[in-house]
C-alpha cells in the first residue's frame, strides 16, 4: 500500500539563534516501518515531537490521513491516532501495568473486563507483561513494552518510537525491531527514530536522513548502503576515519586517582560501576564517552565527592569543583540572586568568608567581576539566577566553579542546552583551566563535543571503564559505548 498516513511539509523550528529544523519534509506510508535517521542534534526528535503536538513549529504543515492541521497538544495528536513512545518512562510507577494501560485507554475498570481487554491487547501485539506488576518495578525493556501497549491501547495506528533501542541490550533490541515489523504488518505505521544505521538497514522499509535540520536523503531502505547513509548523516565518509585528539604527552602530577571503585546505582539496586581504576593528570581533559545509565554519572559524582563509594577509594589532590548536569535544581538556587549563588558554589574557602562571617560586599563585587569576565548577560549581581537564560546560567556555574581555584574539575554535560556560542565560551574556559594545571573529567552525551575538546578518552559501558585504543574510529568508539566491546579490549 502506498497511501500516506502522515505528512509533514516545510517544518522549521528555531530556538534563539539555533535552527533545529530548516524546512524538513517527511512522509509516512501506511503499513511501513520508516526509519528517521540522524546524528544527535540533527532534529529527528524535534520533528516527531512536533508531529505529536509537544512542540509548535515556526512554520510548516501536517496532514494526517488527508486531514490537515498541526496538533496543539499530545491529546489532540492521540485523538488523530498518533502515539509516541518516548525515551523516558511516562508511566506511573506506583500503579500496576493494567492500571497504566487503563489510564491511557480510558477503559472500564471492573477487574474482569479490564484483564480481558489487556490480555487481548497483549496477544494481538505479541507482547506479554504481568498485568498485576507494579510499573515501577519493571526492567527498562519491559517498561518500554508498557509504553508501546499504552500507545496501542489509546488506539494509535501511527506509532512514533523515539530512540527505542537506546536502553536495550542487543537481543532486546532485536526483539523490538521485530515487533515494529509485526505491528507494521498488522496495519500500523511505525516511525523509528534512531541514530544507528544498522537498524535502518535491517528493520525499515524506507529511510529519511536528517542533518543539521534538513532532509538529506529519503527513499527505500533496500536501495541504501552503510556508506550512502553515513554520507547523508555526516556529510562525508568521516565515520570510519580515525579520531584525532589534542594529545598532551608529559609527566604531570596526578591529580585524581580511583582505585577499585564500586558504586551503587543511584536510586535503585545493583552496581552502577564495577572495579573502576583511573588516574588523571594535571592539564588533562579526560572525556568520558558513555550512553546514559552506564555508570558515568556515579563515577563523576564519586570523584566530585557527592556520592560515597561502596568499595574502593577516590583520591584527589586539591580542591574539587563540580558542575552538575541539572543546573536549575542541583547547580543554582533560582530564586536567590547571583551573588548568593556564587557564595553557595565557592563555599568556605572563598575570600569573602572570615571564620563564621560573610562579607557580602566583597562577594557582590567579585560576582560583578565574574559577570564581566565571563560575559554573562545580567543586569547586576542582584539579579535572580532563575531569570538568566540557560547559557548565562551555565556560564555562572562554570565561573563560580573555577573561582574555587580547584585542582580538579568534574563536569556533567557542561554545554547542555547551550547554543553554539555559549557552548564555545564554556569549553574554552575549561580548556584554559586545563592549561593552568587543572585536571578535568568531563562527560557529555554529545560524542562530537567530547572528541573535539578532550585530550584523552575513556568509554564507560555497562559499569566498566574501557580504554580507547589510539587509532580508534568514531564508529568503533560508538560500538564500545554500546557494550559491543572489540575483541582486543583489556
Amino acid at each position, binding site marked *: 500500500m502506498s497511501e500516506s498516513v502522515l505528512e509533514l511539509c516545510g517544518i522549521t523550528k528555531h*530556538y*534563539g*539563534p*539555533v535552527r533545529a529544523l530548516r524546512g524538513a519534509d517527511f512522509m509516512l506510508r501506511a503499513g511501513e516501518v520508516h526509519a528517521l535517521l540522524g546524528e544527535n542534534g540533527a532534529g529527528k526528535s524535534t520533528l516527531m*515531537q512536533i508531529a505529536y503536538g*509537544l*512542540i509548535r513549529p515556526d512554520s510548516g504543515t501536517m496532514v494526517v490521513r488527508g486531514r490537515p492541521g498541526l496538533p496543539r497538544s499530545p491529546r489532540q495528536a492521540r485523538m488523530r491516532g498518533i502515539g509516541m513512545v518516548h525515551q523516558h518512562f511516562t508511566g506511573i510507577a506506583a500503579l500496576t501495568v493494567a492500571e497504566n494501560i487503563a489510564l491511557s485507554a480510558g477503559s472500564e475498570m471492573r477487574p474482569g473486563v479490564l484483564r480481558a481487554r489487556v490480555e487481548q491487547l497483549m496477544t494481538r501485539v505479541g507482547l506479554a507483561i504481568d498485568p498485576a506488576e507494579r510499573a515501577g518495578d519493571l526492567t527498562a525493556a519491559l517498561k518500554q513494552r508498557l509504553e508501546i501497549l499504552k500507545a496501542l491501547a489509546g488506539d494509535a495506528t501511527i506509532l512514533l518510537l523515539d530512540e527505542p533501542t537506546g536502553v536495550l541490550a542487543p537481543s532486546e533490541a532485536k526483539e523490538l525491531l521485530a515487533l515494529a515489523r509485526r505491528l507494521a504488518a498488522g496495519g500500523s505505521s511505525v516511525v523509528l527514530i534512531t541514530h544507528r544505521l544498522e537498524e535502518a538497514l535491517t528493520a525499515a522499509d524506507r529511510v529519511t536522513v536528517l542533518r543539521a535540520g534538513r532532509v538529506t536523503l529519503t527513499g527505500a531502505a533496500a536501495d541504501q548502503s552503510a556508506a550512502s547513509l553515513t554520507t547523508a548523516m555526516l556529510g562525508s565518509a568521516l565515520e570510519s576515519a580515525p579520531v584525532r585528539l589534542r594529545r598532551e604527552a608529559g609527566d604531570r602530577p596526578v591529580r585524581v586517582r580511583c582505585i577499585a571503585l564500586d558504586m551503587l546505582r543511584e536510586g535503585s539496586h545493583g552496581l552502577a560501576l564495577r572495579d573502576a581504576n583511573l588516574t588523571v593528570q594535571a592539564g588533562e581533559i579526560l572525556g568520558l564517552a558513555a550512553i546514559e545509565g552506564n555508570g558515568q554519572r556515579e563515577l563523576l559524582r564519586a570523584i566530585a*565527592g*557527592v556520592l560515597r563509594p561502596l568499595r574502593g577509594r577516590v583520591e584527589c589532590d586539591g580542591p574539587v569543583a*563540580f558542575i*552538575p548536569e541539572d543546573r536549575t*535544581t*542541583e*547547580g*543554582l*538556587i*533560582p*530564586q*536567590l540572586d547571583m551573588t*548568593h549563588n556564587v*557564595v*553557595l*558554589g565557592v*563555599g*568556605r574557602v572563598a575570600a569573602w*568568608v572570615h571564620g*563564621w*562571617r*560573610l562579607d*557580602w560586599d566583597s562577594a557582590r563585587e567579585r560576582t560583578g567581576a565574574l559577570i564581566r569576565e565571563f560575559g554573562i548577560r545580567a543586569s547586576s549581581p542582584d539579579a535572580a539566577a*532563575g*531569570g*538568566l*537564560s*540557560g*547559557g548565562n546560567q551555565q556560564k555562572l*556555574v562554570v565561573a563560580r566553579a573555577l573561582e574555587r581555584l580547584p585542582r580538579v574539575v568534574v563536569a556533567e554535560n557542561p554545554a547542555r542546552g547551550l*547554543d553554539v556560542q555559549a557552548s564555545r565560551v564554556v569549553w574554552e574556559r575549561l580548556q584554559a583551566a586545563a592549561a593552568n594545571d587543572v585536571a578535568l573529567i568531563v562527560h557529555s552525551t554529545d560524542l562530537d563535543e567530547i572528541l573535539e575538546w578532550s585530550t584523552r578518552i575513556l568509554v564507560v559501558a555497562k559499569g566498566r571503564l574501557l580504554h580507547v585504543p589510539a587509532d580508534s574510529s568514531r564508529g568503533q568508539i560508538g560500538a564500545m559505548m554500546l557494550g559491543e566491546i572489540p575483541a582486543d579490549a583489556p
Partner: protein
Amino acid sequence: MMRSGMVVGAAALLVGIGALALGLQLSGYDAGLALAALVRGAVGSWYAISSATLVRAVPLILIGLGIAIAFRANALNIGAEGQFYAGAIAAAWIGLHLGGWHPAAAIPAVWAAAAAAGTLWIVLPVWLKRQFGVLEVISTLLLNFVAESLVSWMVQGPLQEASRIYPQSDPIAETARLPLLPGTRLHLGFLLALAAALIIQYVFRRTVWGFELLATGSGPKAAQVSGRINVNRVATFALLWSGLFAGLAGGIEVGGVSYALFQNLSPGYGFSGIAVALLARLEPLGIVLTGVLFGGLEAGGAAMQRDAGVPSVAVYVVEGVVILVVLLAEAVTRQVRTTVALPDAEADPT
C-alpha cells in the same frame, strides 16, 4: 523586597481585620463596638501600650524568631505551643527553688532552664525525623497536646500550690522574677526579645550559618550538591534553636508576667507566632514589628471580651486570614514571575 513585603503585610492585616469585622457582624455582634474595644485595648493609653500590647509582644517576638530560624531552612515547627509550655514548666519548677539566690544569678538560671526544656521538647520530633522520616509538622503538632496535658497534671499534682485549692503552682521566688519598668507591667524580657532580634538579624545577614539556613530552605538539592552543605544537619539545628526560643518564651512569661504555672498560660502564642513570622517574611527586625502588632491584637482581643462580649479566640480569625493572604500574595507573584518568557528557553511542552 522589604518594601513590597510591608505592603503585602499591611494589606494582609487590613483584610484580616475586615474578615473579623465581617464575621462579627454576621454573628450578630456590634462590629463597630468590638473593633473600638480592640483598638482601645491595644493602643488606647500608655498603660495599654506598655502593659498590654508590649507585654504580649514579648513571647510572640521570641517564638516568631525561633519560627523564622526553622522556616528559613524549610523546617516546619508547628509545636511552639508545646515547647512554650515545656519552658514554662521548667521555669516554674526551678523558680520555686531559687529563694536564696541573687537575681543576677536566678534570672539567667530560669532562662537557661526554660530554654533547655524547650529544646528538649523538640528533640523527640527531630529524632523521629532523622531516624524514621516522620514529618516534623505532625510530630511537633501532636506534642502540643501532650504538653498541655502535662501542665494539667503538674498543676494538679507535683507542682500544685501548697494550699491545694486551685490548679496552679505557688508563685516563684521574688529573686527569680523579672524587673519591671516602673509604673507598668513591662518586664526585662522585652529587652531580651529586642536583643535577640538584633542578634538573629545579624546571624541571618552576615554569617555563614545564616546563609546555609537560607540555602537549605530554598534549594536543598543545590545546597547539598553544589554547596556541600549538610542539609540534614542544618535543618536539625534550625529546629533545635526554634524549640529553644519557644521554651525561653515560656520561661519569660512565667518569670515576668504570671510568676506561676497554670493551665492556658498561653492564649495560642505558638500559633500566633507562626503568623508573626510569616507576616514579617521571616525578617527578624520585621518580627519585632509584627510581634508588637499581634501583641496589640491579643491585648485588643482581651478588651473585646471584657467590653463587647466577644470571645478572645476571635483574633485567631485575623491571624489565620493574615497568613492566607500572605501565602496567596507570594504564590501569585511567583506564578507571575515564572510566566515571563526567558530568551532562549523553551516552554515546558507538557
